[in-house]
């Protein structure tokens, strides 16, 4: 892909990244950080591609290490964010969505 196309992707993603989080409420700072952290775990895709291409034992081992680290980042990130938000729901009254499990 040519450089200008990639630059376009980059600039548009920067603008969207700035825009989507600019109105976050203070109580959600940590879950948002954790969720964003889980999203960059998608480097797992890169780790899979690189490891799937190698024929050399040394790079295979480093590639598999990258796969493990990236999986920990992605899976752990989403699970811990979910747990954070689970507690959050119980604590803050205005967060209660449609379902109220406590009442039923």
């Amino acid at each position, binding site marked *: 892909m040519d450089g200008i196309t990639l630059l376009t992707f980059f600039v548009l993603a920067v603008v969207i990244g700035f825009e989507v989080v600019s109105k976050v409420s203070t109580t959600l700072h940590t879950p948002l950080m954790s969720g964003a952290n889980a999203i960059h775990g998608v480097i797992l895709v890169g780790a899979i591609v690189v490891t799937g291409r190698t024929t050399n034992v040394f790079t295979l081992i480093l590639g598999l290490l990258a796969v*493990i680290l990236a999986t920990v980042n992605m899976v752990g990130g989403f699970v811990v964010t979910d747990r954070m938000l689970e507690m959050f729901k119980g604590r803050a009254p205005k967060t209660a969505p449609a379902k109220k499990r406590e009442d039923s």
Partner: protein
Amino acid sequence: MNLLSPAATALIYLVAAICFIIALKGLSAPGTARRGNLIGAAGAVVAVLVAFFSANLSNVPWIVLAIAVGTLVAVPTARRVAMTAMPQLVALFNGVGGGAAALVAGLELTDSAHGSGAIAAIAAAAGAFTVLVGTVSFSGSVVTYAKLQELMTTRPVTFPGGQYVFGASLVAAVALAVSAVVVGANGGSNGLLLGVLALVSLAVGILFVLPVGGADVPIVISLLNAFTGLTVAASGYVLSNTLLLVAGTLVGASGTILTRLMAAAMGRSITSILFGAFKPSTMVA
């Protein structure tokens, strides 16, 4: 397996990127946060599945095993962690992500040729950036983990001339990165240079976080999170993978804004958090 055409792969990557945008947007409001996180997770799972079906991969059993190992490590850890220990766990997850990005870019640059001339130079620069910043994010995150877990003092750690040692290590890392770019751009093998760069960057990350005091550590975690996002974007450039580029940039940009918001909520400026501990030792003119 080569079941998906490049166009189909690109379209599914676009869907995953939109999932990530919806996830970040959802996480910004209390009512939608949990659903947002699940949408992000769904996007990530789809992206990983597509990676298996869009190229002819070898070593697939090993890769699946590695993913299983990572999942078996991550899920119980994330499930069992105490509420108070969550920030440092996020720091640790962020750090391993940075380490993974550094490994991916380093392997990609040493493993396959990237054209010649300007294209090779830009790819080499993006790769050197990923190795440097990804490793800083890794070692910095480990130090923030140790601070929050109280494995070490939470007070700012400074020593005489600390800022000069930090400055020197940073200069050394940048010099190594530049030489890796020059060697890479001329078609040479820069694997060894990138390895040394990673080692020096480990020291840079440690020296970067040591002077930060306990209460400011979450803001530094957020900053390192934004760093990791940018390294993922740069490795997306090296691999010509638009999803990594877009997802990494989203996290880098939103992480930067979030870092500023967190600092503002505490009434602190980012420079005073990062370099405040150096001030008493500097000479008053």
